[in-house]
């Protein structure tokens, strides 16, 4: 790559980063300003003198019982949905990649159709159904729709990974004395790990960021996840919303996602299968 090219790439990257990160930076900036400073107007990026709140907003947010409960809900619901979704998707994708069975194409097409279904159109029926079933405003009431919307994508991603793994790997394991299940667990799943973690990240994102289900299928802090909780976070004066507290809440709620991505990203090492067979 020529120097000119490299400079172009760097400038382009900076522009894109600015574009994407400016709002985030602004939220962070807001979260460190005091409520009065914001109400009085504080246009600068850095807090004006005397308008800084230090960590006070964060302390207030974390001290809030409702907020803590919402964080707990979000983490619990997202992790359970991710776990279940990845396990089911792994098994389903394996079957799709390895077995010939009647209706295979149907399953795949159906999965795609579900993935394309607009989320909003399901909210009404789900609201009625969940109330009848008695799972309205509970964790399962959110976990189920999250799974049904993330499974298709997870299945498609994973079956692509499974197809890449040579059949011989599994046969070698069977000859070495493994049952089909052992071969799957000890050889196939580790080899498909990048796919498993990709699917996990996608699912976790969806569940964590969901607002529509979170706000319509919950009514109390019993199951209300963070995005919905933030919108209910009005503070003492309903006409004067605590922008700085909200900003601090928003920043706190992005932290788990950053942690999860950093954790999983290490596992997504491409080309893990290289060396399995003579290429």
């Amino acid at each position: 790559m020529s120097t000119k090219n490299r400079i172009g790439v760097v400038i382009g990257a900076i522009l894109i980063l600015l574009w994407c990160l400016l709002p985030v930076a602004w939220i962070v900036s807001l979260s460190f300003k005091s409520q009065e400073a914001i109400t009085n107007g504080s246009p600068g990026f850095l807090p004006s003198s005397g308008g800084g709140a230090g960590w006070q907003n964060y302390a207030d947010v974390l001290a809030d019982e409702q907020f803590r409960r919402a964080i707990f809900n979000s983490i619990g619901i997202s992790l359970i949905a991710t776990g279940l979704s990845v396990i089911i998707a792994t098994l389903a994708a394996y079957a799709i990649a390895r077995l010939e069975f009647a209706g295979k194409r149907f399953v795949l097409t159906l999965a795609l159709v579900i993935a394309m279904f607009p989320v909003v159109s399901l909210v009404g029926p789900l609201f009625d159904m969940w109330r009848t079933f008695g799972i309205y405003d509970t964790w399962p009431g959110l976990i189920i729709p999250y799974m049904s919307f993330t499974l298709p994508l997870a299945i498609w991603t994973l079956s692509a990974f499974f197809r890449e793994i040579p059949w011989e790997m599994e046969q070698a394991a069977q000859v070495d004395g493994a049952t089909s299940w052992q071969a799957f667990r000890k050889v196939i799943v580790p080899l498909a790990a990048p796919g498993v973690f990709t699917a996990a990240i996608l699912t976790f994102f969806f569940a964590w960021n969901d607002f529509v289900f979170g706000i319509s299928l919950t009514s109390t802090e019993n199951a209300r996840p963070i995005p919905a909780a933030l919108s209910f976070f009005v503070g003492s004066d309903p006409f004067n919303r605590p922008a700085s507290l909200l900003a601090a809440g928003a920043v706190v709620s992005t932290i788990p996602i950053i942690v999860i991505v950093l954790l999983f990203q290490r596992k997504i090492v491409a080309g893990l299968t290289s060396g399995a067979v003579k290429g």
Partner: protein
Amino acid sequence: MAGIQMKNIVKQYGDGFPAVNDVSIDVEEGEFLILVGPSGCGKSTLLRMIVGLEDITGGDMVIGGKKVNDLAPRERNLSMVFQNYALYPHLTVYENIAFPLRLAGKPESEIDEKVREASKTLELDEHLERKPGNLSGGQRQRVAMGRAIVRDAEAFLFDEPLSNLDAKLRGQMRTEISRLQKRLGITTVYVTHDQTEAMTLGDRVAVLKRGVLQQHATPRELYENPANLFVAGFIGSPPMNFLPANVKGNQVELPFGTVTIPEDKAAKAQGKGLLIAGIRPDHFEDADVVDKDKVTDEATFKAKVDVVEWLGNEAYAYIPFEAPTEVREQLAQLEKDLDGESLRTQLVVSLDGASRVSEGDEATIWVDARKIHLFDPATGENLTMDADNAGIIPGGNAMAKAEEIGEEQDAV
């Protein structure tokens, strides 16, 4: 350790493709058996049926006196080296070798001891902590072998384990495998389409064509007494020469002249019309370098040499000839079956390195007439075979049967 008996094994794939047809082979305990044949003849299929990765359509597979047709691979306790090694890329070399032991739930101390022993045998000690992806082809091959020998399996199965290596390494690994098998004394079935491996490694060799067993014999028996044209053409390098021949009494008319063959051989070939004579390149010699008392008019002919390849210890001379149409067709078909492509009918003659014959010369060539085989061009059968020294030849006409099956296969 156990013997393996294949009894009338048949394999028909889901699409109706008859890949293996009524093959019966008896592998004795501790024997090194080679399965050989051209590409697509069903060698891998047969091996995979032994190990249990492929369902058996018909016949019995008996290992150690027990019928195993319906047993899963892990219940057969065989170990296999795959053509592409199939190492586990996410595990280190150590863990790759330890894998079968861990599955068997062996205690840690025993695992460690056995893995170290295998790695020592295969000189893998300094690579134990590396991943297969970072190893060379030969090292990967040794890891695959390690995984196979670490466990006390009933038998070893190899599917073209050397085909991915370069020529030099292949030679080294070949002797390595041979030594290892001799030392461990374990029953081994080895698939290859390389006839050098077949000749050098095996106690016995089973030659397959189109899923039909052609002959099951020692390398020497195959070389000296091939059952039919196919086996004759497949075994030996450079391959056997096939010439049109007319037998009159004990005189055989070849394109270059007439030679005299022993009475008993001639008797078997009487009244069959035009035949195909098979003569190995090394059964010819430059008359100038042969002992004088062997050179008689009945055993020599004169021919114009087209090309000479001198290799030091020996030289190959090429002598083109014209073949009558009926023989030419059979020979062209044979070429195709053997994965060959030469369309020219020519004689390949292996001469002593001392021979001074050069290109364009009119040379006097001596032929060892006792070694000539005569084949029936219609069926491919060897008429002059010494049946007592030809190993096991399946009943019926195997080559003709293979041709029939071939038509069935082409139809699928």
